[in-house]
């Protein structure tokens, strides 16, 4: 460990201790557990700064926060899955004894009987789950592809019809837009000359852009034909429209991202340092 590193560590430790003390003191009159609260807020601020320090370069503080984050979050999701799915959903339907053990009310699921005898319908996923765990065994590892096949097959079938409907049929049919709006005279046509998409001219312009944009965009996605001639022209228009859209989406997202940073800095300046009211 280099000398600068040691000095830096010591410095951070001192700042941490001072912040803990000061924070506890300032929370004294609000909470009973002010000492642990002071520590936790200081810890949160320290972790926030550790992550931000990554912007300068990779460093031990970032590595610390990163590794802690990975361990804690993995366990968090596992606990959540265990309590909400296994204990919350599965066990009450599976066994009376286990339900009593986990102190959850047993559910007599009459609809399970509707299809399969007794509780078989809830033992199947357990069996499949255990088959999946067989992966860890060298000999029987191949059997873990069965539950996988079940998941992939089911989802593939589900996605096939679902996307065919929502991403294909409905999107194609919503392209049927009137490109000519009933003529209501020149005055009406050019009044409301405003791009908030309600004036007559603007509605028509919008519909044309949408119609041609969709067609050209689709042409761009043709794979089995060389993009040449008219076809190439349409595909070029298609990629223009795509690029304009990507730029606009990018520009639009900036606002939301800045808000996130505002939130984080407000935590540092307000909750931790108490610089602002």
């Amino acid at each position, binding site marked *: 460990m280099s000398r600068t590193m040691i000095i830096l560590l010591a410095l951070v430790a001192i700042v941490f201790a001072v912040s803990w003390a000061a924070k506890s003191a300032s929370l004294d009159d609000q909470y009973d557990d002010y000492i642990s609260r002071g520590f936790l807020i200081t810890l949160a601020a320290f972790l926030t700064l550790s992550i931000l320090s990554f912007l300068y370069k990779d460093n031990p503080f970032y*590595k610390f926060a990163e590794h802690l*984050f*990975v361990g804690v979050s993995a366990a*968090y999701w596992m606990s959540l899955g265990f309590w909400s799915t296994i204990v919350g959903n599965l066990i009450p339907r599976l066994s009376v004894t286990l339900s009593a053990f986990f102190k959850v009310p047993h559910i007599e699921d009459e609809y399970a009987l509707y299809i399969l005898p007794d509780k078989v319908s809830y033992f199947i996923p357990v069996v499949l789950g255990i088959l*999946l765990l067989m992966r860890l065994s060298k000999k029987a590892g191949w059997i873990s592809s069965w539950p996988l096949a079940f998941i992939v097959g*089911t989802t593939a079938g589900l996605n096939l019809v679902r996307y065919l409907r929502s991403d294909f049929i409905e999107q194609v049919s919503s392209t*049927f837009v009137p490109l000519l709006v009933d003529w209501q005279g020149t005055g009406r046509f050019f009044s409301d000359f405003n791009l908030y998409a309600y004036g007559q001219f603007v509605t028509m312009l919008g519909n044309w852009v949408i119609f041609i944009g969709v067609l050209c965009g689709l042409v761009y996605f043709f794979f*089995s034909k060389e993009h040449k001639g008219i076809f190439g022209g349409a595909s070029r228009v298609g990629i223009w429209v795509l690029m304009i859209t*990507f730029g606009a989406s990018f520009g639009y997202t900036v606002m939301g991202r800045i808000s996130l940073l505002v939130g984080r800095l407000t935590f540092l300046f307000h909750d931790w340092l108490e610089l602002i009211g």
Partner: protein
Amino acid sequence: MKFKMLLALILLCFVSAVSGFGQSAEEIMALPDSMAMAPPAPPSNVRGVDTDNDHGHSITLTWETSPDDGAGLNNVIGYKVFRAESPDGPFIERALIPSGGTGHIDVGAKEKDANDYLPDHVGFYYKVRAITADSLIYAESEVFGPVQSYGQWFNTGRVPVLVFVIFFLFVTLFFIQKAKGGANLFVRRLAGIEAVDEAIGRATEMGKPILYVLGLGTAADIATIASYTILGRVAKKVAEYQTGLIVPCYDPIVMTVAQETVKASYMDAGRPDAYYEDMVYFVTQSQFAYVAAVNGTMLRERPATNIYMGKFYAESLILAETGALAGSIQISGTDEIAQIPFFVVACDYTLIGEELYAASAYLGREPLLLGSLKAQDYAKAAAIIIAIIGFITMNFGIEAFKHLFYVSN
């Protein structure tokens, strides 16, 4: 309308003042329910049938509005639908429909213990009440019944989807047969995919590994499935060139599959000895913890190339910018529309949407995969033709064509 109501109010004040209710005029104004009026004519012709194309537990009702709804006495403000298990009642209120309404779908719960459980195969009786602003003044239709609900075995409203499934299946099978027969199917170049080979070569020269990120999708997401194929291809090349490969995973099942895929590729390349299980490892199933770890890997291992293929969310830009910071060549592909702009901006090559799916066929060059790519193009051509026909019919005021594509729930 407003004028009439004002008139009624004035009249009301007058009447109540004269009859001397012992209340101040102000208080009466706040109590509109005591307005005296003639009862409206009842709604007529109430009919009920089982709701079509559903799982049962639902009955569709229609009726004709009261003559005093919007005309005549003009005092109907809505309709109440009542249901009972016998013609004599007791009737329970099921719905309130604003004036002008001529129908209602009475949907009940399918769970037996639910409050508004509506059993199948049980006769029900309905009546409709035209209501006025005064809760005491109303008119009821005749009772209709019995009517039963039951579930159907085929949803006719979804026929368009079925037609397309069959169409797609046939076109795909046709082109696969054709491709098997040796027909040469042309596929245009995809810069992003051609860059993959180049990038692997570069990594070998630099003696640095390749980082492959499968995204946040689950094992069954189509984007992830497409990504496995590309991973298999990349892993094979990597094994041949003897470069390193790092595959951090977000989903444990995806990890399992990726391990199999990479292992198989190393075997194919004739280098099973170079494969080790921890090339592909699980990080955590938490979006930003995963990103934090991958970011750290990028800056510490300095991979020559980062490949991102699959489902990505807000983390796309964090990954791509860190990768650029580490000086890696970056190739990305996702079907997550909101993230495509960020990949396009921050990566060297990006496969946009469908190109990701095409990539697996392009890389494989197998007739089977190419055949289905051809089928995709034909479906696209069909989409364009349908859109043009739709636009023409639409602009000539023919709505029927559009209705062909209407899919009910």
